[in-house]
């Protein structure tokens, strides 16, 4: 392999995060909304511990695990996509991106099935405070998954048309950063809402 190439991607060298700085401002803004939501959940639970513990048992933890795995896997695929474009391998990059999007799609399917189950039982936002939080938090995140898929889709199309290269691939990193954020939020959401009691 190209040992003569001096690559510094592992060394502390950069002051700016990968991708467009604008997406990072956006990511920070989005993360703060979720942070407020998480804290609100935890402090509301404080006054309704029994209610929260009781209805947490009605959630489908298996689906939640599957969804965690799909998002982590999908995030990993995106890492591979970025690595591929850094090697100037368009085709591989597109394939990894498509794999990531399909994992996102799988998430949407599983989550929809969960919603269908809840709605089928007549549960809605006004059922109780726990379901209010559960539905709001997961649905807000759900919308982000969809938005992330749209962004990755746009990046994949541009990558397919040869819009990126080993030198210029800010777009891929931008989409990747957003997608990792979607994953990151779920990593906290999963234990908080489904497991911690």
């Amino acid at each position, binding site marked *: 392999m190209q040992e003569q190439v001096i690559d510094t991607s592992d060394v502390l060298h950069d002051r700016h995060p990968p991708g*467009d700085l*604008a*997406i990072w*401002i*956006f990511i920070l*803004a*989005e993360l*703060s*909304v979720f942070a*407020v*939501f998480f804290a*609100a959940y935890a402090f509301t639970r404080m006054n309704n511990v029994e209610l929260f513990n009781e209805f947490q048992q009605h959630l489908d933890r298996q689906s939640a695990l599957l969804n965690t795995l799909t998002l982590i896997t999908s995030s990993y695929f995106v890492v591979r996509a970025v690595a591929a474009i850094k090697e100037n391998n368009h085709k591989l990059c597109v394939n990894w991106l498509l794999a990531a999007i399909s994992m996102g799609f799988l998430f949407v399917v599983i989550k929809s099935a969960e919603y269908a189950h809840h709605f089928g039982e007549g549960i809605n*936002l*006004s059922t109780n*405070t726990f379901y*209010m*939080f559960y539905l*709001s938090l997961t649905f807000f995140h759900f919308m982000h998954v969809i938005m992330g898929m749209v962004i990755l889709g746009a990046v994949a199309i541009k990558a397919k048309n040869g819009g990126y290269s080993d030198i210029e691939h800010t777009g891929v990193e931008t989409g990747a950063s957003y997608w990792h954020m979607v994953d990151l939020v779920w990593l906290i959401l999963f234990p908080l809402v489904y497991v911690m009691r």
Partner: protein
Amino acid sequence: MTYKSQSVAKLYFIAAIALFAAQILFGLILGLQYVMGDFLFPHIPFNAARMVHTNALIVWLLMAFMGAAYYLVPEESETELFSPLLAILMFWIFLVAAGLTVAGYLLVPYSTLAELTGNDLLPTMGREFLEQPTITKLGIVVVALAFLFNIGMTILKGRKTVINLVLLLGLTGLAVFFLFAFYNPTNVVLDKYFWWWVVHLWVEGVWELILGSILAFVLIKVTGVDREVIEKWLYIIIAMTLITGIIGTGHHYFWIGTPEYWQWWGSIFSAMEPIPFFMMTVFAFNMVNKRRREHPNRAATLWALGTAVMAFLGAGVWGFLHTLSPVNYYTHGSQITAAHGHMAFYGAYVMINLTIISYAMPLLRGRNAANSNKSQIWEMWSFWLMTIAMVFITLFLTGAGILQVYLQRVAENPQPFMVVQDQIALFYWLREIAGLMFFGGLVVYIASFFVGQDEPEATVAQS
């Protein structure tokens, strides 16, 4: 001015400033009526003066938005306006309708106005900010449709930029949400619920898109920074605006009989509404710092930066003050709301319109880039006078509001509304004085259009 048809904007801007003056005059009358209840009674009762004050504001902002669009869209699209004639025609229809409506408010009792205009055929009157007779509302729809058609066709035949597409999206949203002014259910909860779709989704939703695109346009012009950089910022600002602003409507749903989850949704999402405003502040200062040229119109740059700061303070900070439902439980409908309303409207929408007017008017009046130094100095004086006066108005109203909330709602022995009003009269007097200062600023502002006409244009070297 690159395109001849941009000149229709001038009419709109002049009428907007005239209505602005009317709004401020009635503001002064209202401010005095707070402390001298029978001032000008029975000729101009409080309720009529209030309608004129708020409706004149909305109408002049709309006029200035239209003027801004007529100025900005041809230049962005790099083509003449689809139909300048239609634009001029709509201007006169709009102006006459606005004039007749104000005359109606002032000359006959409101109920008589409702009868005269056939409100019982399609009842839409009697709601705050939407007091206009149904026929005026229909007129607004016609004007808005013709305007959208005109602007849309211009963009369609010309260059499509992010700025004019965001502007078009904002203006379309403005027209669509206004349609809820015609929906007037008998159920009071539903009535209020959809009433906010006009009021809130205008000022905390689609208007922010209009604000963002006008600001972006002026910043490109005065700083010479790459369009791509500015467009990127515009994207994230509008995305954040829509995410927080749409669900943020919930902060109006706390106490009107809607389900409990709105307490959470409204609190959390609207607490985030300052973020896009903050981004706008960072954006504006960043662009000005990175400027590639010195633009001779320093006044326009000042207005642009002022908009970014005051919008954040007024809409962002003062909005956040009372947006969380446990706080709002005590503060809703108090002078805190009035403080927020004044600074937010001034900081976001008055100032953005004065920004585009400041940038465009010299060009519309035949200058190459900017007014004379003298005229700009007057204009910048008016900037500081009005802005500082507005800060004082806001602070005095906030003081009044805090005291009011305490005496009337928090204290162990809450006092009745009118008793409390007497006790906060000092703040109202101070507010009125600040209001006079604002009026002084407005006089200087209008004068800035007339002074220094025969002097040469300001140049960069002089700055």
